[in-house]
C-alpha cells in the first residue's frame, strides 16, 4: 500500500493560486486507507478551497486513481471535471501523474508520497519497502535494510550502532542487529561475515513494464 501524507495547506493553496474552478480527485484505494484522499479529505478540501476564494467544482473518488484510462473516462464523464481550470489530486505520485496524463489541464499534488507500507493495523503503516527494484530480502532474513536502515546499508551494522540502537534515531533498533538476531535464531549469523556486493541501480533506469510481460506470463501459465 502506498502511504501518503497531506501536504501543508499553505503549499497546496499556493499551488492552486492561479486557478478559480478546481476539481478534486481523491483515490478509493491507498489514499483512502491512508486517510489522505477519501470522502472526508475531499470534503474538507472543498471547504478550504471555498474559504480561500476558489470555486470548487466538485470531487470524485475513483477506485484507482493511478490508472490513466480510468482517469480519462472519469474526467470525460463529469461536466464539472471537464470544465474546471485545474485538478487538485489527493493521491500518490502515480495517481497525480495518471490525471496529468489523462488531461492537458494543470494538476496540483495535494499529498506527499512516502513509501510502500506494510499495514500493522488499520491506519498504521510500517515503512518496510521503498520499491528499490532489486529486492535483497532473501539475503537479509526477510528484513529490508534498504528501507529500514537510514543509510540503506547492504553491509551492516555501521559503527553508529550502540547497544543495538541506531545512530540516526537512538530510540529505534538498528535494523542490522534485527537482521543478525533473526539469522542467529537460525544459526545462520555467519552470513554477516560475507559481503553483499554493491547494489545495481540498472532497474532504476527502466521506465515502463510493457504489457507483453503480462501476456507472456499468462501464456506461460496457460501452457502449463
Amino acid at each position, binding site marked *: 500500500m502506498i502511504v501518503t501524507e497531506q501536504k501543508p495547506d499553505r503549499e497546496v493553496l499556493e499551488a492552486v493560486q492561479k486557478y478559480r474552478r478546481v476539481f478534486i480527485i481523491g483515490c478509493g484505494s491507498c489514499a483512502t486507507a491512508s486517510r489522505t484522499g477519501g470522502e472526508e479529505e475531499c470534503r474538507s478540501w472543498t471547504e478550504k478551497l471555498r474559504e480561500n476564494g476558489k470555486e470548487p467544482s466538485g470531487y470524485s473518488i475513483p477506485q484507482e486513481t493511478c490508472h490513466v484510462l480510468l482517469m480519462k473516462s472519469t474526467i470525460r464523464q463529469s461536466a464539472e471535471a471537464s470544465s474546471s481550470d485545474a485538478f487538485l489530486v489527493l493521491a500518490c505520485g502515480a495517481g497525480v501523474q495518471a490525471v496529468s496524463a489523462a488531461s492537458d489541464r494543470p494538476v496540483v499534488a495535494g499529498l506527499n508520497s512516502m513509501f510502500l507500507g506494510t499495514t500493522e493495523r488499520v491506519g498504521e503503516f510500517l515503512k518496510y519497502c521503498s520499491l528499490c527494484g532489486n529486492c535483497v530480502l532473501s539475503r537479509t532474513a526477510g528484513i529490508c535494510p534498504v528501507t529500514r536502515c*537510514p*543509510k*540503506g*546499508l*547492504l*553491509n*551492516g*551494522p*555501521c*559503527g*553508529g*550502532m*550502540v*547497544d*543495538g*540502537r541506531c*545512530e*540516526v534515531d*537512538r530510540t529505534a533498533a538498528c535494523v*542490522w*542487529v534485527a537482521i*543478525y538476531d533473526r539469522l*542467529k535464531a537460525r544459526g545462520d*549469523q*555467519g552470513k*554477516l*561475515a*560475507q*559481503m*553483499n*556486493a*554493491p*547494489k545495481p541501480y540498472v532497474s532504476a533506469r527502466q521506465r515502463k513494464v510493457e504489457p507483453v510481460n503480462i501476456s507472456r506470463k499468462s501464456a506461460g501459465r496457460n501452457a502449463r
Partner: protein
Amino acid sequence: MTRLSEALAGKEFVITAELSPRKGTLVTNFIKTVHALQGKVHAINITDNQRAIMRMSSLAASYLVLREGMEPIYQITCRDRNRLAIQSDLIGASALGIKNVLALTGDHPSVGDSPEAKPVFDLDATTLLHTITRLNAGSDLDGHPLKGATDLFPGAALTPQTEPLEPVLLTMERKISAGARFFQTQPVFDMDAFRSFATLTGRFGTPVIVGILLLHSAQQAQDLNAGVPGIKIPDVMIRRLGEAADPRREGIDIAAELIRSARNIAQGVHIMTVGQEKDLPVLLERISG
C-alpha cells in the same frame, strides 16, 4: 609501502593522531599542528566531514599533510559520494602519493550541520574496501582496466565497546575479507574491557590500533557521555578530572596512562581530541619519554 604499513608489519607500536580539516581555506593553524606532530607520530588521520559537518575535503587536507613531509591516513566515507566519485578520488589520492586510506561508512547527514543533504551510501565501508582492493589490482569496480593501478594501504574502523558484540566481530571478519589491512577503533576508556575484546579479535591476525580520546575537563567528559553515542567515560575518570587543580594536565595524564596500558594489548594507539589539538604534542612528548 608506507611508514605505517612498514611499522605495522614490523610489529612496532604505532602512534597515529587525528586532525580535522578546517571549515574554510585558512590552514595556518592546521599546518602548525601538522608541524608540531612531526617525528612524534607514524601518520596523521585526516577526517572526512566528520560527524557530517562540512569542512575542507579530506583529500585536499591529506595532501597538505603530505606536502609538509608527514604521512596522512586519508579518511574517506560513503556518505557524500557515489562509486564513481569515490573511485576517482582514490585514484587521485594514489597519484598524489597519499597511500594510507581509512575506509568508513560515514555518519548520517542528519547528525551534522547540513541535515537536509541527500545521503548517498552507494557503497558502504565493506564494499569500499573491496573497491580499493580492485583498484590496487588494476581494475575498477566494474572490471574495466586501469592505466596504472593504485597503491593504497586500506584500513577500517572498529567499535569495541558495544552490544551485541558478535555482529561487530562478523563485520570485522567481512572487512578483512574485503581487504582491510589494519583497524583503528573508536575511543576506549577501559583497557581491561578492551583486553578481553582483543583476545577475540586476535585470531584474525590483523593489527588493531586502539583509539584514545584526550579529555580536558569533567564537564567535557560528561557532555561526551551524554551526547556522543558509544562513548563511555567511567565515573572515576570524570571524578579525577573534576578534582584536579589543572584538569587539562589531568586529561593528559589519563591519556598517557591509557596509552601505557595499551602497549601490550594493541598494535598501537590512535589519539583523538575534541578541538584540543594543541595538547597533542604535549601528550606525545610525555609518552615518548
